[in-house]
């Protein structure tokens, strides 16, 4: 797992066969309903996300798109419905558990760690992958837990002393982060506190942080909001590259229809917390209900 070179497929990624692109459903949501007090945010939503596809979620403001992402990464708990992730039905969980299972996320309003530098933000994304020490697996009941605790304590000590395994691990993870920095072309702002960066770069750093988690499923909440055309082009390129080179499944919310139609494989349309349409971009584009929703026809 820790061998970095194996994590980043080299140029070979481009040679992948198109027909092999989509695999099994990575995540399936079925009949999800969510409400806050009296407010119904999502009603009976079902769709799936296939491995390695780029799935767009669109809809007018207040359609429940962000709530949907929040449900997927465990921040909101739906009152009804099931989520199946990698073939297992998921129980109620906290967001950090979703993260541990390989779901990463960016936010509509940039949610970077403002007091830290770009590099530290990205390194924070590596937290789950960092282990100074690993407890050996013995398979003996109880002993494993004890060993894990012991390893955790020792790990803490090495962090206090910044010594041995800790320094090695820091350096190794740093190298990984530097790869992402290169990939997203943000070398120049490595040590800049992110609070001082312009909005477009902040969005990029946020993507970098999400990538540092080596996610299997990447949730992007309006990655291109507030950007100019060139920035949007850059960002689209990055998303496509991530999807192709790392093979990461992407679910994204976006308002720019042009971008959505260009880069997504399939689109799900929400309105007023209900699913309106689901399908390939060109199918969705011609859907009567979708057009009505966007043009504001009364329901």
């Amino acid at each position, binding site marked *: 797992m820790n061998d970095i070179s194996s994590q980043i497929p080299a140029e070979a990624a481009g040679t992948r066969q198109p027909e092999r692109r989509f695999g099994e459903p990575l995540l399936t949501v079925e009949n999800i309903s969510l409400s806050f007090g009296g407010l119904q945010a999502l009603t009976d939503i079902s769709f799936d996300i296939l491995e390695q596809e780029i799935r767009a979620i669109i809809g007018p403001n207040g359609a429940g798109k962000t709530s949907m992402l929040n449900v997927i990464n465990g921040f909101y708990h739906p009152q009804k419905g099931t989520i199946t992730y990698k073939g297992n039905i998921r129980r109620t969980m906290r967001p*950090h558990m979703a*993260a541990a299972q390989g779901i990463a996320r960016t936010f509509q309003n940039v949610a970077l*760690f*403002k007091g*830290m530098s770009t590099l530290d933000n990205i*390194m924070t994304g590596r937290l789950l992958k960092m282990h100074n020490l690993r407890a050996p697996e013995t398979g003996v009941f109880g002993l494993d837990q004890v060993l894990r605790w012991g390893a955790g304590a020792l790990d803490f000590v090495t962090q206090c002393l910044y010594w041995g395994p800790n320094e090695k691990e*820091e350096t190794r993870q740093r190298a990984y982060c530097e790869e992402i920095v290169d990939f997203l072309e943000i070398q120049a702002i490595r040590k800049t506190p992110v609070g001082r960066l312009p909005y477009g770069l902040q969005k990029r750093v946020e993507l970098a*942080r999400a990538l540092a988690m080596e996610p299997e499923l990447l949730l992007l909440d309006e990655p291109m909001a507030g950007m100019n055309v060139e920035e949007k082009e850059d960002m689209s390129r990055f998303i496509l590259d991530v999807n192709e080179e790392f093979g990461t499944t992407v679910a994204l919310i976006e308002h720019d229809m042009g971008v959505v139609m260009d880069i997504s494989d399939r689109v799900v349309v929400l309105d007023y917390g209900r699913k309106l349409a689901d399908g390939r971009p060109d199918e969705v584009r011609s859907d009567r209900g979708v057009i009505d929703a966007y043009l504001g026809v009364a329901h």
Partner: protein
Amino acid sequence: MFYREAGQFKTSYAADQAIYPIRQDKIGILILFGFSLLAIPFIAPIYWLNSILIPFLIFSLAALGLNILTGYCGQLSLGTGGFMACGAFFSYKLATAMPDTNILIVFLLAGLGTALVGVLFGLPSLRIKGFYLAVATLAAQFFLIWMFNKFSWWTNHSPSGVISAPPRAVFGDIDVTSASASPEAKYVFLLLLVSFLALIAKNMVRSRIGRSWMAIRDMDIAAEIIGIRPMLAKLSAFAVSSFFIGVSGALWAFTYSGSVEALAFEINRSFEVLFMIIIGGLGAIMGSFLGAAFIVLLPIALDTIPLLLGLPLSVETVAHLRLIIFGALIIFFLIVEPHGLARLWQIGKEKLRLWPFPY
């Protein structure tokens, strides 16, 4: 001119991650440490050792502890005094119950005990935030002080509830605790201990654990979504912070004051330490030291200024003026540089780097 980093290239990530990546800084800090260790004990007057340097070092440690919790993890705490009291009373009980144990181990155990108490009182932080949490930590403050004051077991049934530190040595027969120890020995002991603990703190905040604290501080929701367990991060911050504060409380009772009652750790102590980290700089190890120095020195300086100027002010007027000036200075500093002395220090360094060119 001499403060140039041009020509210093880092060829490995390890070198780039060092505490002081710039060579001049490294040399500077080594000289400062060497001077503090080898020269100050011999040249500083006893008054400086006893009344300024020793409390400064102890307060720095407490500020360091609070800075980990408040500056790095973003959890505002007003319970510092209570945790210092824990350290003081735990170490007193341990030191008197096990007179033959090395005092360093006693301090360590007292710190660990305080860490446990810190975790206990940190539990509400999982539910409540901001000023609500701050007020909730006052519960810890008042409860702990009451407990040490109320149950005479903590003071070995001293009729007045005062503990007085027994003399103990770290090695050989050079005492470092209680009033009978020489100020020089106490100072050197404190300098080494506090420097070591500061190094540990620095290492923590540039490692994984420190990053998870800062992530919680900057945006707890995003931190959780990238996989940080808020409970673990917050409680570990409470534990580490309380450990530092507990050790500083033990040092306060054993090396500075020699004898304390629980009321010595009342709410004002909490505010004092909070001032230190705000003035010094939240989220800066250096800031804890600068802030502690400032708060220790300011009242003494304010007392001395009228004497220096030869103003015939009564003690009463000076005392009142001191309150006013103290308050006004704090407001002034907060307005001018809310990021504290540490930031001023940094700005100064950046200026020096470019000097004599303005940009």
